[in-house]
């Protein structure tokens, strides 16, 4: 049986125990005993005790078996192969997995075929173990739980404890995700920094990971591939600046107009329209940037006598700015609306015009929130991927001219990690180091934004 049908069987067993438990409790009540809880609580207790541990064991076994197989399969690799220079566990395992799946690229060495045959045997055993363990746990757990059931058994409390446990466990997923992110990025980054010094990565001025193949082929010229990330961060910075110089004025002034001047009817129409911009997928923006905006800017530049690269930072930044407008405007709208009306009334009472009130009273009061909104917008821009992948190109130029082609951190991560990777090469690992810095930057910006709000927030009451 495959894991899915085992899971169905386990659920079925649980359901049977649920019926049995409910029935026996109802029968007990019929015969005059006082139940502590409602009959279905007894059934639920039996059913949950039957299926939940079994399902949990099934999931653990299903995830764990491949890891065990991988370690076992490595025993088949002859020492001679292990001693080879370019020996990589991942490649060997992929070779074996291909044979297991029935995909054959030419003649495989005998040990690969042996390992694959053994693998198929283990897979059978593991299927058997999974089935037996899960069904056994379900039947046994349900049986033990039914034995516990007596009219005075506090089954509602027990069921609620189980539900509470499930709720609590769900909330731990968020932490597990974070740990997963940290683990997946930090370990590979550490391996990268063992190959490339941190100082070179952080302060090097050339990014050129292309010569990895030559290096592996044993040419011995370690100096060919360079991993200085400054051009990438400069590119990210440049595109973000362009994006913000579009998004901040437009977003902020629209928010001011919508919250202070616009009639409710105008607001009801314009606000959803602007939020439509936020709902457009980034890949659509990327397509728009690459096929409409970039050629337009290029031909416009040519008419003005400027040399605009066909994948200019300006095109990517401009479109990214459009994407961020609703983000800035809705966040600013919220903070402007949070400024109490009493402040405005006081300013009007002193004779100020509406714009004077906004400029001298409302905006200063809303400033911390607006600064936080801008910081969050920066973090958005830095982490944005598809627009830059499609429109900004891959040329790692160190330039602050928005008409040049630049590349960004996210664009490099995607290019390096999409498709076939060279296993464990410095090039692949560099993407993880870039991702680590990206996470640090975005979380840092977020943290600063929160601190700004916390520190300068005025409590109006």
């Amino acid at each position: 049986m495959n894991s899915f049908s085992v899971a169905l069987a386990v659920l079925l067993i649980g359901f049977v125990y649920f019926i049995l438990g409910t029935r026996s409790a109802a029968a007990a009540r019929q015969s005059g005993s006082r139940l502590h809880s409602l009959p279905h609580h007894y059934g639920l207790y039996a059913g949950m005790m039957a299926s939940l541990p079994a399902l949990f064991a099934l999931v653990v076994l299903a995830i764990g078996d491949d890891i065990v197989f991988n370690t076992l399969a490595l025993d088949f690799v002859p020492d001679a192969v292990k001693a080879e220079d370019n020996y990589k566990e991942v490649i060997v395992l992929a070779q074996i997995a291909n044979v297991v799946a029935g995909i054959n690229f030419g003649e495989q060495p005998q040990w690969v075929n042996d390992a694959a045959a053994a693998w198929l045997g283990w897979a059978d055993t593991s299927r058997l173990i999974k089935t037996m363990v899960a069904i056994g746990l379900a039947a046994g757990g349900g049986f033990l739980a039914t034995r516990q059931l007596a009219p005075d058994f506090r089954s509602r409390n027990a069921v609620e404890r189980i539900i509470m446990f499930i709720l609590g466990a769900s909330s731990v997923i968020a932490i597990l995700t974070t740990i997963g992110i940290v683990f997946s990025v930090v370990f590979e980054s550490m391996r990268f920094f063992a190959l490339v010094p941190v100082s070179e990565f952080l302060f090097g001025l050339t990014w050129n990971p292309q010569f990895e193949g030559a290096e592996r082929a044993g040419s011995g010229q370690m100096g060919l591939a360079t991993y200085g990330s400054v051009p990438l961060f400069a590119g990210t910075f440049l595109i973000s600046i362009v994006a913000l110089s579009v998004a901040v004025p437009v977003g902020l002034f629209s928010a001011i107009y919508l919250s202070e001047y616009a009639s409710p009817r105008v607001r009801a129409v314009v606000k959803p329209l602007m939020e439509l911009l936020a709902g457009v997928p980034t890949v659509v923006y990327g397509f728009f940037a690459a096929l409409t905006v970039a050629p337009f800017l290029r031909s416009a530049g040519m008419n003005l006598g400027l040399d605009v690269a066909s994948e200019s930072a300006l095109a990517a930044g401009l479109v990214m700015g459009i994407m961020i407008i609703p983000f800035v405007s809705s966040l600013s709208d919220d903070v402007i609306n949070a400024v109490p009306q009493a402040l405005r009334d006081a300013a009007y009472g002193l004779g100020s015009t509406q714009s004077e009130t906004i400029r001298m009273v409302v905006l200063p009061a809303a400033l911390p929130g607006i600064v936080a909104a801008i910081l969050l917008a920066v973090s958005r821009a830095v982490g944005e991927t598809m627009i830059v992948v499609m429109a900004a190109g891959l040329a790692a130029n160190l330039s602050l001219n928005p008409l040049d082609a630049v590349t960004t951190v996210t664009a490099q991560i995607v290019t390096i990690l999409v498709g076939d990777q060279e296993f464990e090469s410095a090039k692949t690992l560099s993407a993880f180091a870039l991702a680590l810095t990206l996470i640090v930057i975005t979380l840092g910006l977020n943290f600063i934004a929160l601190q700004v709000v916390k520190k300068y927030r005025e409590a109006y009451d």
Partner: protein
Amino acid sequence: MTDRQDMTTPGAKSDGMMSPDVAARRVAASIGGRRQRERRFKSYGLIAIGIALAFLVILFASIFSKGIPGFFQHYVTLEVTLDRAKLDPAGDLSLQSLYDGDARGAIRAALYEATGASGRSGRKAAGKIISQGAEQRLRKAVIDDPSILGTTQSMVFAVDDDVDSFLRGFISRDTPEADRRINDKMIGYIDQLVADNRIEYAFSDYLIFGSASRNAEMAGIFGAFVGSMLTLSVCLVLAFPLGVATAVYLEEFAPKNRLTEIIEININNLAAVPSVVFGILGLAIFIGIFGMPRSIPLIGGVVLALMTLPTIIISSRAAIRAVPPSIRDAALGVGASRMQTMLHHVVPLAMPGMLTGTIIGMAQALGETAPLLMIGMVAFIVDVPGSVTDPGTVLPVQIFMWADFAERMFVQKTSAAIIVLLAFLISMNAAAIFIRKKLERRW
């Protein structure tokens, strides 16, 4: 507000006491300039909104103007003689026999007849008019209705994408022959087909029912659409229960201690992590450590679920918080346990808000591209995925891949695919707004 009491009126200098007359004169003198500044400031706001809306209009206009033609393509009608012995040499109508048969020959013969093409170069030119998908279509017609074998049928086939571009006028006759992808002979044949009324411009069934293809005229979004639906259902099945459970726990039951505080900070931070990082998580953990295969909707769904979880949790918590305490008090007062109060009263009342958040999260997931690129859903896969463990791709990734192809027709098909994607996203968001408006109770 004591610190604001001494705020000066704008425009007046606080140079000591001033008689009312002087003050009034100063105000009167400055009022014109102040009104002008007021108008200017207000116009900044209008201009900003105008710019934002103009961007919206340009974006949609550019996509729709390219995309609407993408829903159509040119077809040619041919009288095909379906010779039984040639098309089905084994005579058992099996797929193998049909593939061994000469479907291409039958179509070519009909094409030569319609165009009057003769000679080696003429036939070669005529052959390029029709799509490579025509043979497949002929075989399918034979399988659907074997009785047409042995007769002559009038059949409709798509034309090649270059011919399609020519018919749309993207390839000009005035371009020198060497510079265009269609030579003069082909143009002559195409003109003849047009004159015979054999060419029609019709709704593109390939776009809706076709799968990934390198031939622009045969490419369609069906495979990617199925992949999107599979991925999204995995995402929904995981993210909705987990998100609601987390929200319920944190809002109602969690003790206020260090651990819960860490969880809350964590959720807020996860909402700020760039989506591409979730792709790296999927690549390193699910593919790297757990050894799961690449390109499958299962992993895509899990990654997107982790990504949308913060959105769902945050909106579900807001929905739970909006349920007034009187509901809880009433339930507790008649003897319900805290869990019963929660599950029987608070959660059902908060459900519209939770659903709204979930739909918005799902819309986010449907439009997401970058994390799926990381886990290899960018592979070129012709087969439509049948389950969550078959390799597949999704709509946004399909759009990303097509955007890279140079053929003119791909630009239109990409825009058409974008229109389909946007239609889904907008209707999901509209559904969320509808649920919020109709079902959410104001207390």
